[in-house]
C-alpha cells in the first residue's frame, strides 16, 4: 500500500472540496453536503494513512517533476509528519461537519462558498507543509496556509473588527515569511541544495547556526503565537467563524511548532543556551498568556489567549528536549519531546472542542460577551457538558488528556534536578499557570453556563446534531487519552525517535501509564457511582431559591459577573497587566444609573506594535507618490529593480566589455 499516495488523496480532496461546493446555487444547501462529503472522505483516507505510517514507523518518499525549470516536488511522509497530519485531517474533517450546521449555505449565501474554498485550501496547505522536503515547496505550502488563513479571518468582511484583525494578521504573517525566506536562502547557500538536509557540521560555525535558529524561532514563532509575537492572534481567532477558529487555534498554530521541529532537525549544533532560551520563552508565554486571558470578556478572545498559554507549555517541552540533547540526557529528551508532542495533540483536541462549544453558544444565544450570558447549562445541556469537559482538560485536571501531557513535562522538569536544578523552577511556573487556568475557566464556565441569564438575550436553544456530534467525538478523544495514556505511548515514541535520531529509553518505563489508567477509571467510576446513589437519595429534595440573607427575590443583577470574579486576581497581579478601569462617577443626592467595567488590553499590541506601526506609516507615507495604481508603472518598477540587481551582481567592467 502506498500510504503517501493516500495522504495525497486527502490533500487533493480538501483542496477540491471548495470548488465542488461552488457548483450549487447561493441559497441551496445540497452542494455543501457534497463538498463536506468530499472533504471528510479525503480526511478519512489521510487519517488511515497517517496512522499506518506512524504506528508502523514507515517512511515513504516521492519525487515529482514540477512545471518550473530545475525544480522538483519532493515529498516524504515519516512518523513525525504523520504525527502532525493526524490532527490536521481529524480536526479538519470534524470542523467541516460542524460547518454544515454552523455556516449553512442558505443562511450565509454570500460567504458560505468562499469560506469553504479557503478552508479546504488551508487544510490542504497544512498537510502539504508536513510532507515537503524542498524549501521552495515548503514556502509555497506555507504561503498557501498563511493566505487562506487571511481570507478565512475576513470571512465576515462587512465587520470592521474582522477587517482590522485580518490586516494585523497579514502584516504579521508576511513578516514571518520574510524571515523564513531569509532562513531558507541561507540554508540553500550553506548546503548547496534546496532540499532540506542537515547542514554539514564542520562547515557551518556556531554563530551562523544560532542565527538560523533565531530566524526559525522568530519566523515560526510569529505563526505559533509566542509572546511577544502573539499580538495578531487573539483578534484574528475571535473574529473568524468558530469552526475556523477551532482549526486555526487547534491546528494552524502547531504548524509553527512543526516548522521549528523541522528546522531543528537540520541544524547540527545543540548549545544548551538554545534549550534554555526556549524553556524560558515557553514559561513566559504560558504565564502571560493565561494572565491576559483572565481579564477578557469575549469568550473567543479568552480562548485565543489560552492558545498562547498552551503554545508556551508546548515550547517548554521542546526546550527541555533540546537541553536534553545538549547535555546528553536521553530521559529529558524523551519526556520533554513526548510532552511537547502530546500537548500538540491534546491542545488540538480540547481547544477545538472549546471553540466549537463557544460557537454553539454564539449560535444559540447570539452573543460572545461573557457578561451578557448566564444560565445556559439549562437550555443547552449538551454544549454545557462538553464545554465543562474541555475546561477540565485545558486546566490539566485528571483524569483528562491535558493532565497526561503536563505530567510528562513536569516529570521531565523534575528529572533535571540531578544535573541542572535551576531548570526545575519551571515546574513551579507551570503549577501557577495551571492554577490561573483553573481560575480562568471557572470564570468562563461559571459565568456563561451557570447562574441566571445576565441580559435579555434571545431565548437560547440547543444546537443541531451536526454541531454537537463533532464536539462529542473530540470530547471522547480527550477522555480516551486521559484514561488510557498507554495508547499514545507508541506513537509518541516513534515521533520522538524520528525527531531526535538517537536510541532513547522507552517512555513506558518513565511514566506509570497503567497506574494512571487505573486511577483515572477509579475516579470516573467513583464519581459516577456516587452520582447514581445520590440521585436516588435526592428524590425528596425540596426546591427553593438561592439563599440571599433572607432576601426572597434574588435578581440576576445580584450575581457575580466575569469582571467581578476576576477583579481580585487582577488587582493582585496588577503590575503585570495593562488594565483600564472605567469607574462610575457618583455625584449628587439622587444617583443615576452608572456602569463599571474593566478592559485588559494587550500590552504588546497597544504599547509596542501600534505606535511603531503608526510611525512607520507616517514615514512611509512620503513614498506614496510612487504608488500610482496602474499596472504599467509597476512593470516599469520591476524592470528598474531587475536592472539594478544586474548591475549589482555583474561587475560593471564585465558589463562594459559585454556592451562594447
Amino acid at each position, binding site marked *: 500500500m502506498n500510504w503517501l499516495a493516500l495522504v495525497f488523496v486527502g490533500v487533493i480532496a480538501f483542496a477540491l472540496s471548495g470548488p465542488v461546493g461552488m457548483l450549487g446555487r447561493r441559497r441551496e444547501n445540497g452542494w455543501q453536503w457534497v463538498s463536506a462529503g468530499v472533504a471528510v472522505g479525503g480526511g478519512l483516507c489521510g487519517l488511515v494513512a497517517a496512522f499506518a505510517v506512524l504506528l508502523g514507523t514507515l517512511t515513504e518518499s516521492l519525487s515529482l517533476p514540477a512545471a518550473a525549470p530545475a525544480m522538483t516536488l519532493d515529498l516524504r511522509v515519516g512518523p513525525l509528519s504523520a504525527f502532525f497530519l493526524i490532527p490536521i485531517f481529524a480536526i479538519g474533517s470534524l470542523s467541516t461537519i460542524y460547518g454544515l450546521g454552523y455556516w449553512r449555505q442558505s443562511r450565509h449565501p454570500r460567504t458560505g462558498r468562499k469560506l469553504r474554498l479557503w478552508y479546504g485550501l488551508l487544510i490542504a496547505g497544512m498537510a502539504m507543509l508536513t510532507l515537503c522536503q524542498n524549501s521552495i515547496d515548503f514556502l509555497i505550502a506555507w504561503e498557501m496556509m498563511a493566505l487562506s488563513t487571511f481570507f478565512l479571518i475576513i470571512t465576515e468582511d462587512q465587520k470592521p473588527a474582522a477587517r482590522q484583525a485580518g490586516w494585523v494578521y497579514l502584516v504579521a504573517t508576511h513578516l514571518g515569511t520574510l524571515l523564513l525566506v531569509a532562513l531558507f536562502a541561507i540554508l540553500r547557500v550553506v548546503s548547496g541544495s534546496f532540499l532540506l538536509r542537515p547542514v554539514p557540521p564542520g562547515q557551518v560555525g556556531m554563530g551562523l547556526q544560532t542565527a538560523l535558529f533565531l530566524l526559525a524561532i522568530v519566523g515560526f514563532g510569529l505563526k505559533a503565537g509566542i509572546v511577544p509575537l502573539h499580538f495578531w492572534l487573539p483578534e484574528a481567532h475571535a473574529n473568524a467563524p468558530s469552526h475556523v477558529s477551532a482549526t486555526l487555534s487547534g491546528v494552524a498554530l502547531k504548524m509553527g511548532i512543526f516548522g521549528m521541529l523541522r528546522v531543528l532537525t537540520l541544524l547540527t549544533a545543540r548549545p544548551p543556551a538554545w534549550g534554555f532560551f526556549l524553556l524560558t520563552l515557553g514559561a513566559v508565554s504560558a504565564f502571560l498568556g493565561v494572565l491576559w486571558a483572565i481579564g477578557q470578556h469575549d469568550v473567543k478572545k479568552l480562548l485565543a489567549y489560552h492558545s498562547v498559554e498552551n503554545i508556551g507549555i508546548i515550547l517548554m517541552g521542546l526546550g527541555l528536549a533540546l537541553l536534553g540533547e545538549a547535555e546528553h540526557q536521553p530521559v529529558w529528551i524523551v519526556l520533554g519531546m513526548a510532552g511537547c508532542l502530546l500537548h500538540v495533540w491534546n491542545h488540538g483536541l480540547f481547544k477545538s472542542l472549546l471553540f466549537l462549544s463557544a460557537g454553539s453558544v454564539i449560535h444559540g444565544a447570539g452573543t460572545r460577551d461573557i457578561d451578557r450570558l448566564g444560565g445556559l*447549562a*439549562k437550555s443547552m445541556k449538551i454544549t*454545557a457538558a462538553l464545554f*465543562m469537559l474541555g475546561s477540565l482538560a485545558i*486546566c490539566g485536571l*485528571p483524569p483528562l488528556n491535558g*493532565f497526561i501531557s503536563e505530567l510528562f513535562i*513536569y*516529570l521531565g522538569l523534575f*528529572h533535571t*534536578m*540531578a544535573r541542572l*536544578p*535551576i531548570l*526545575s*523552577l519551571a*515546574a*513551579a*511556573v507551570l*503549577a*501557577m499557570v*495551571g*492554577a490561573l487556568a*483553573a*481560575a480562568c475557566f*471557572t470564570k468562563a*464556565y*461559571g459565568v456563561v453556563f*451557570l*447562574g*441566571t441569564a445576565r441580559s435579555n438575550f434571545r431565548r437560547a436553544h440547543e444546537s443541531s446534531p451536526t454541531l454537537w456530534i463533532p464536539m462529542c467525538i473530540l470530547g471522547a478523544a480527550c477522555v480516551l487519552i486521559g484514561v488510557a495514556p498507554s495508547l499514545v505511548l507508541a506513537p509518541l515514541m516513534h515521533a520522538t525517535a524520528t525527531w531526535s535520531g538517537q536510541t532513547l529509553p522507552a517512555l513506558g518505563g*518513565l*511514566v*506509570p501509564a497503567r*497506574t494512571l489508567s487505573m*486511577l483515572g477509571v*477509579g475516579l470516573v467510576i467513583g464519581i459516577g457511582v*456516587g*452520582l447514581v446513589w445520590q440521585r436516588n*437519595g*435526592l428524590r*425528596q*429534595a*425540596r*426546591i*427553593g*431559591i*438561592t*439563599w440571599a*440573607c433572607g432576601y426572597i427575590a*434574588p435578581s440576576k443583577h*445580584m*450575581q*457575580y459577573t466575569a469582571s*467581578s*470574579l*476576576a477583579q*481580585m*486576581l487582577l488587582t*493582585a497581579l496588577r503590575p503585570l497587566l495593562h488594565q483600564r478601569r472605567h469607574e462610575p462617577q457618583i455625584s449628587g443626592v439622587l444617583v443615576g444609573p452608572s456602569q463599571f467595567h474593566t478592559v485588559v488590553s494587550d500590552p504588546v499590541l497597544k504599547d509596542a506594535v501600534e505606535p511603531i506601526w503608526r510611525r512607520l506609516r507616517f514615514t512611509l507615507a512620503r513614498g506614496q507618490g510612487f504608488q500610482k495604481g496602474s499596472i504599467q508603472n509597476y512593470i516599469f518598477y520591476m524592470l528598474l529593480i531587475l536592472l539594478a540587481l544586474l548591475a549589482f551582481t555583474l561587475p560593471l567592467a564585465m558589463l562594459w566589455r559585454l556592451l562594447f
Partner: protein
Amino acid sequence: MTTFIGICLQVALLALLPPLLLGIINKTKAGFAGRRGPPILQVYYDLLRLMKKNVVISSTTTWVFLAAPLVSVVSVVLAGLMVPLGPTAAPIHFTGDLIMFAYLLALGRFFTTMAALDTGSSFEGMGAAREFTFACFSEPALFLALLVLVKLSGALSLSAMLLPASHVRIGSTASAALVLIAVSLFVVLLAETSRIPVDDPNTHLELTMIHEVMVLDNSGPLLGAQIYASSLKLLILAAFLLHIVLPLNPALVGRDWGLMLVGLLVVAGIIGSVESLMARLQLRFVPTLLVAACLFSGFGFLLIL
C-alpha cells in the same frame, strides 16, 4: 505484613480521624476564650445529623452543584491515599504521584468554586473569586516545597520523598531548607483549609468568608460531604507537614505511628491556637502572605542548589 497493617491503618485513619481534628481545633479555641466549648466529637454528631437530613436545592442550580460535594470527597480521598500518614508507604504510590496529588486537590477546588457560581448568589461568587485567587498563589508555594523534597530524596513519589525527609540530620543545610518549607507548607495548609489568618470558618458574616460562603447553599448530606472533604484535606496536609518536621525512625514502626498520631493532634492544637491568638488578615493582604510562603519555599530551594 507491616505494609498490610500500615495500609489498613491508613485507610481507617483517613475514614475516621478527620472530624476529630476539627473537634480539637474548636476545643482549643474554646479553651483560649474561657468557654467549655462543644464536645470534642461534636463534628461527628454534626455529620451524622446532616447525613439523615433532607436537602434543599436552589432552583437556579444544575448538575454541577450536586456533583461538586461528591467530586470533592472522591478527589480528596484519592489524594489522601497517596500521602503516607504513618512511617510506611502510602497505599497508592507511583512515579509522579506528587503531581497527581496536587492536581486532585485542584480538581476538588475547581468543582467547589464552580458549584458556588452555580447558585447565582453574589456571596457565593465572592467566595469563589477569593478561593481561586488564593489558590493561584498557594500552588507555586506547594510546588517549590515539592521541588526541595525531590532534590533531597532524589525520588519522584510522595512516599519515597516524605519518608526519608524525616531522617535528615539536624544542623545540615538540608535541615535548614526543611525548616523553610515547613513554614511555607504551614501557611499553605492554613490557606487551603480556610483557617485564620486567611479565612474565618466561624464567622456569621457572609461578606468576610471564603470556604463557608461557597457552601452556603449546601444542605443535608451535600453539606456533610463538603465538611468531611475539607476536614480530610486538613488531615492530609497536616500529615504532609509532619513528615517534614518529625524525626521518624524506620526501625521503630510502632513508635512512629504513635508519634504521627500525636503529631496530628498537636497540629490541630497549634491551628486552634493560631486561630485564637491572631486576627484574620485583611483580604487584600492574603496574597502577600502567600507570596511570602512562596519566598520561604524558594529560599529553601536556593539553599540546596
